[in-house]
C-alpha cells in the first residue's frame, strides 16, 4: 500500500474536508453519517458527531454542546485529553479492507480508556486517574471502576496526544482496558444522552440498541481534546463516533418481528442452480446471492431518519449529513424533499436533508459491474495463545505485510495481566519471505527498540512495547513462552473455568508521510489458568458451615442461656466475677469523678 492510496482513504478524506472548513468556530455542532456497503452483504454505517466549546467557556463551566456531565468530570480529574472506546466483534479485514478512521476511532474488544492527565507526579496522576475512571464508570454504566493498578499501563510510544496542549501542563498518559466487558444497550443510552439532539432528531435518531448490538462489529468512541488554531485561539472539541458493520440479511430479517427466526425458506423461494443436471423439485444446488442486495434505511435500522438535528451548523458541505458510497451507476431512491449530490470520485454521493422531514433511502437490487474499491490494510496481525496444559503456554503473534515494495514500521503494544508471566528471553522471530520458507532470525534483527516494564504480582501487569518492522511481502512471527500463575482461592471470579481475558494488543503503524497514525488491534484472548475444583470445596464449606451454624448456635444457646427474672438478673450480675469487677470499676470511676460512692 502506498502513501498515495492512504490519502485516498474515503473516510479520512471526507472527515478532513469537513474538519478544515469549520473546526475553529468557537461553538458549533456537526454530524455526519457514511453508509458503505461492504462485500458479503455487509453494510458499514459510520456515524460522527463533533462539537466545540471555546476553552474560555469550558473553564467557566459554560457548556453548550459539550455535555456538562462529562465536562465537569474532566475538570475534576484534571484530564486534558480523553479517549474512550466501547467495541464488540471483529473487523474482518480480509473481506472489508482497511478500517474506518484508520483504526484511530476504535478500541480493543470491551472497553478501552486512555487519557492525558495534568498532575505534578505519577502518584497524583494515578489518583486523578482513579477519580476519572470511577466517574466515567457511573456516567457510562460500564465497569470502568475495575480499571485498577493491575489494568493500568503508561505506554511510552504507542499513543501521542492528538490535541494541542500548552507546554505548562505536566501531562501523564494512562491507559486501561477491560477486555471482558460486554458492551450493550446500557452503554448506548448514556452515549446518546451526550449528544445535543439525544437521538431524537438527525442521524442519531437511527440508533436502536437492538440493531446496533446485532452488528458483526461495532465501535463507539468518545474523544475530547483541546484544539488550537494558528492564532492561539483554543477550543475544547468533543467527537463521538459510532461505527458498525451490519449484516444486511440479518438486519432486514429481524424487522419482521413475527419471523425473526431464520427458518428454512419455502421450497419455491429457493434460488437454485438450474444448470445442474440433477436439479429438480427436491434437489437444489443453491446459488448464493451476490453483493448488490436491495436494502433501505428503514429496513436496516428499523426506523427512518428524523430530518436533521436543528443545532447543526448549516453551511457549505456540512449540511450534507448523509453520504453513501456506491457506484454512481447504481440507482438510489430517496425521500422527495432530500437532495442528492454526486461527488467527483465516482463512488460517493451525499444527501442534503430537509429539516424535520423523515428521510429514507433505498437501494434496489441491480446488477452492477463496477465495485467500490476497498483499501487493502497496511498490515495484518494475528495473536493467539499456543500450547496446552495448565502450567505453561506460548504467545504467537503473526504480522503480515501485503505490500510488495515497502517495509512497515510499527509499535506493538501489549499489556498482560500479572498472572501471565512472559519469559522475554524466549522471544523469537521467524521471517517467511516470498519463497514461503520460514527463517529463524534473532529477535533483535526485527525488533529495533523494546520498552518493557515487568509485572509485580497483584500490583501491576506487564507492559511490553516493541518497535519493529516487517520487510516487504513477508510475514514475521514472534513467539514467546509464558508461565501461568496460580491464583489465591479468593482471586478466582465466579466463572473461573471460562478462562481469563487478556487484553488485545495495540499496533500503531508509523507512517512519517502521513499525519494520522494507523491503529490495529488484535482480538482479545482467553487464558485458561490452573483452576481448582470449586464445586467440592464450595459444597463442603457451605453445607458444613450451615449445619454447624444451626447446630452449634442452637445447642450453645440452650447450654449457655439461663432464663431468669429481671431482679434475679441484677443479683446474679453482682455476684459473678464480671459483675464484681464491673462494680469495682464503676466505683473507681465515680470516685475519680468526685461523686460519692453509692452504697447499697
Amino acid at each position, binding site marked *: 500500500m502506498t502513501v498515495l492510496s492512504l490519502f485516498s482513504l474515503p473516510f479520512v478524506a471526507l472527515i478532513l474536508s469537513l474538519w478544515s472548513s469549520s473546526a475553529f468556530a468557537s461553538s458549533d455542532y456537526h454530524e455526519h453519517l457514511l453508509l458503505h456497503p461492504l462485500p458479503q452483504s455487509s453494510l458499514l454505517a459510520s456515524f460522527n458527531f463533533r462539537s466545540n466549546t471555546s476553552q474560555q467557556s469550558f473553564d467557566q463551566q459554560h457548556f453548550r454542546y459539550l455535555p456538562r456531565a462529562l465536562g465537569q468530570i474532566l475538570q475534576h480529574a484534571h484530564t486534558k485529553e480523553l479517549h474512550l472506546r466501547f467495541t*464488540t466483534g471483529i473487523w474482518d479485514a480480509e473481506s472489508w479492507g482497511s478500517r474506518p478512521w484508520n483504526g484511530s476511532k476504535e478500541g480493543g474488544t470491551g472497553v478501552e480508556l486512555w487519557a492525558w492527565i495534568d498532575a505534578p507526579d505519577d502518584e497524583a496522576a494515578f489518583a486523578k486517574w482513579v477519580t476519572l475512571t470511577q466517574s466515567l464508570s457511573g456516567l457510562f454504566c460500564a465497569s470502568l471502576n475495575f480499571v485498577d493498578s493491575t489494568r493500568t499501563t503508561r505506554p511510552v510510544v504507542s499513543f501521542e496526544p492528538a490535541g494541542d496542549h500548552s507546554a505548562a501542563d505536566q501531562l501523564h498518559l494512562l491507559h486501561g482496558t477491560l477486555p471482558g466487558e460486554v458492551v450493550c444497550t446500557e452503554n448506548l443510552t448514556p452515549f446518546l444522552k451526550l449528544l445535543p439532539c439525544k437521538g431524537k432528531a438527525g442521524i442519531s435518531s437511527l440508533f436502536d440498541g437492538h440493531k446496533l448490538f446485532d452488528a458483526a462489529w461495532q465501535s463507539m468512541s468518545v474523544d475530547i481534546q483541546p484544539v488550537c488554531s494558528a492564532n492561539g485561539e483554543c477550543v475544547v472539541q468533543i467527537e463521538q463516533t459510532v461505527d458498525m458493520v451490519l449484516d444486511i440479511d440479518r438486519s432486514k430479517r429481524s424487522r419482521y418481528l413475527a419471523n425473526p427466526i431464520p427458518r428454512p425458506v419455502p421450497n419455491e423461494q429457493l434460488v*437454485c442452480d438450474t444448470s445442474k443436471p440433477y436439479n429438480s423439485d427436491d434437489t437444489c444446488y443453491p446459488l448464493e446471492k451476490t453483493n448488490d442486495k436491495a436494502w433501505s434505511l428503514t429496513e436496516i435500522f428499523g426506523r427512518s431518519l428524523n430530518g436533521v438535528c436543528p443545532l447543526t451548523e448549516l453551511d457549505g458541505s456540512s449540511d450534507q449529513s448523509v453520504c453513501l458510497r456506491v457506484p454512481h451507476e447504481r440507482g438510489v431512491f430517496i425521500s422527495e424533499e432530500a437532495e442528492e449530490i454526486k461527488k467527483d470520485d465516482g463512488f460517493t454521493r451525499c444527501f442534503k436533508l430537509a429539516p424535520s422531514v423523515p428521510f429514507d433511502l433505498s437501494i434496489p437490487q441491480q446488477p452492477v459491474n463496477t465495485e467500490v474499491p476497498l483499501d487493502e490494510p497496511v498490515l495484518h496481525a494475528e495473536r493467539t495463545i499456543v500450547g496446552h496444559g495448565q502450567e505453561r503456554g506460548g504467545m504467537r503473534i503473526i504480522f503480515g505485510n501485503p505490500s510488495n515494495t515497502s517495509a512497515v514500521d510499527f509499535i506493538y503494544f501489549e499489556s498482560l495481566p500479572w498472572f501471565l508471566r512472559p519469559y522475554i528471553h524466549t522471544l523469537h522471530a521467524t521471517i517467511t519471505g516470498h519463497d514461503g520458507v520460514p527463517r529463524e532470525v534473532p529477535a533483535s534483527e526485527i525488533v529495533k527498540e523494546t520498552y518493557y516494564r515487568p509485572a509485580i504480582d497483584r500490583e501491576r501487569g506487564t507492559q511490553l512495547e516493541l518497535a519493529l518492522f516487517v520487510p516487504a511481502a513477508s510475514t514475521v512471527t514472534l513467539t514467546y513462552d509464558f508461565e501461568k500463575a496460580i491464583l489465591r482461592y479468593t482471586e478466582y471470579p465466579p466463572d473461573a473455568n471460562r478462562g481469563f481475558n487478556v487484553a488485545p494488543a495495540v499496533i500503531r503503524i508509523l507512517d512519517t508521510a502521513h499525519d494520522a497514525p494507523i491503529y490495529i488491534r488484535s482480538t482479545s484472548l482467553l487464558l485458561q489458568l490452573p483452576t481448582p475444583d470449586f464445586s467440592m470445596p464450595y459444597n463442603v464449606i457451605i453445607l458444613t458451615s450451615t449445619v454447624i451454624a444451626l447446630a452449634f448456635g442452637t445447642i450453645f444457646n440452650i447450654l449457655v442461656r439461663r432464663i431468669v427474672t429481671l431482679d434475679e438478673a441484677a443479683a446474679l450480675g453482682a455476684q459473678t466475677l464480671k459483675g464484681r469487677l464491673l462494680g469495682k470499676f464503676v466505683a473507681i470511676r465515680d470516685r475519680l469523678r468526685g461523686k460519692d460512692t453509692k452504697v447499697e
Partner: protein
Amino acid sequence: MPAAIRNLRNNPHFLFARLPNLLSFICVVVGVVWLLLLPLNEYSRQTYISENALLPGQVHAYFTGSEQNIFRGYKRELEGLLNDGQARGGQKDEAEVTAAVSDKLQSILQAAGLKVATQKYEYTSAGITHQGENTYAIIHAPRGDATEAIVLVAPWITADDKLNLNGVTLALTLARYFKRWSLWSKDIIFLITPDSKSGTQAWIDAYHDMHPASVQPLPLKSGALQGALVIEYPLDHRFQSLHIVYDGVNGQLPNLDLFNTAVAIAGGQMGIGANLQEMWGHDDSYEHRLQTMFRGMTKQGLGYATGAHSSFMPYHIDAITLQTKGEGWEDEMALGRTIESLCRSLNNLLEHLHQSFFFYLLMQSNRFVSIGTYLPSAMLIAGNFTIMAIALWMRTGYYPESKPSAKPMNEKGSAEEKAKTDGIAERHLALPLSLVVGLHLLGLVPLWVFNNIFHQYFTTTTYIFVVVDIILPLFLAAILSNGLGLSNPIIPQQYHLIKSFSLLLLGLSLSTLATLNFSLSFMIGLLCAPLSFVARLQGSAPFRLATSSLGLVLLNLVSPPTVLLGVCWYMGISVETVLTQAAFGWDIWGMWTQVVVWCVWWPAWLIGCVLLWSSMF
C-alpha cells in the same frame, strides 16, 4: 484379640509366609468381585446433567424443509465428483479427484460466506505414510470476538473405514444453515478431514502449535475450543439409532455432561435411540450392563483412538462421535437437528465443561459409576503386589529362611542360628536391585523395536519375542544359580529381595496408573496377579521340576507376546494389524499403552519366570 496377636507373633512362618499370600489373594478376589458388583443398581447411578447452562433439548431445531433440497443438491454434486473418479478408475486419478473434491468443498463453504483454509499433513509410521489435506471453515460468531469456538468434524472415511458422504454433505448443509443464525456466541469451525485417524490429529496439533514439521501450520484460527462433535453417516439408507462413541486416546474421556447432553437430545428431543459401545439390543439387564462396561474398559485400557473425536481429548477439549446405525426411519435431517440442538447447547456454555465427571464407566446410556466407586477395585489389585512386596521385605530382614535346608551346612548353620536368636538378618541388596533395574531398562528394547520396525516384520518379531521370553529367563536363572564362576552363588534371601523389588515397582506403577487409566491398570493387574504367588520352590527335585514346569507353562501363557497372539487369534485379527495400529498410536496419537506393557508388565513377568526357572537348578 491380644491372644490372637500373640499367637501370630509366636508363629512367624504364618505371619511372614502364609498371611501375605492370603491377604494378596483376598485383595485380588475382592477387587474382581467389586468390579462385578458395579452394574447393580445399588452401586451405579443414574446420569444427570450437571451443568445447568447446557439446557439440552430446550430449543426448537429448525433444520428441516427446504434445507433437505440443498442437502440433496450438495450430495449429488459431491457424488458426481467421486463417481467421476471411479468411472475413470485407476490410481493415477485419485489425487486429481481429491483435489477436485477439495476445491468443491472450498467453493461451497466460501459461497456460504465462511472463511475457508486448508492444511496438508504427512505422517510416517511403521514404514507406512499417511497423508492428506484437511479443509476447514469458520463461522465467526456474529457478535463475538473469536475467543471461543466449537468444532464440527466430518471425516471422509469413518472410523469403520466407510465413505462418509452423507456426513460430509450434512456438515456443508449445516454450515450454510448455521451462518444465517445470529445467536452464536462462539465461532463454529467445520473441519473436513480425509480420514478418522490422522486428519483431526494433524489439525488439532497445529491448532495448538504442537505439530511436527511434516504437518503444515494453520493459516486461519479462532479462539479456545470448547467442544467438538464428529458426524458419521456412512449409510445409504435411513438409520435407526445413534451410536455415541466417546473414548479418547490413553483412556481419557470427555466430560460426562457432553455425553449426557447428546443422549438427552437424541432420546428426549428427537426420539432417536442412543447406543454406546456397540450394544445394539441393550435390555438394561445385569449381563448387558456388565458387557457394556467391559467393552468400555477394553477400549479405555488399550488406549487407542476410537474415532476422529479421540484426538481432541489430550488438549482438554471434550468431543464425541455420533454414528448412525441400523435401518430405521430417521433421515439425515433428524441427525442434522440433533447436531443443531447439540450446538445450541454447547453455545450456551459460559465456562469450559467442568461440572460433571471426567472419570466414569458407562454401562447404559443413562447409567454410570464414578471414579470414587470403581477405583478401589483396581487399587486393591495393585495393592496385592505392594502387600506381598512389603511382606517379603520384612521376611528377608526378620525371618530366617529354610530351617531344614540350613542344617546340613554346618559352617553357615551357626551364623543362621545366631541370626535366628536376635531375629535380624543382613540384606544383600546389590544384586537384586541391579537385576530389577536392569530388566526394567531392558524393556526399552522391545518398546523401541515394536515402534520402529517396518510393519511387515511385526508378526515375525512377535514370535521371536515368544521364544526370547522362554530363553531369557532360563539364561538369567542359570547365571544367578551358578554365578558362572564370576561371583558367589545367590542365596535364597536374594530371591525374595528380587521378587520384593519387582512387586513393589509393579504395585507402585499400577496404583498410580489406576488414577489415570483405570482399565489398563486393572487389566495389567489381573494378568500380573499370578506373579504375587510364584516363588523359587523348595523341596525334592522331582516335585520342584514338575511344579515349576507346570508353572512356567502357565506363566508363559500370560506373557505379553502370548497374550497378544491369543487375543488376536480369538478376535480373528492379524497381529500385524494390531501392532501397526499400536505403532501408529505411539507415533501420532501419543499413546502410552506400550510403555506400560514393555516397561511395567514385561519386566515383572520376566522376574516371575526367572524365579520359577531357578527352582530347577
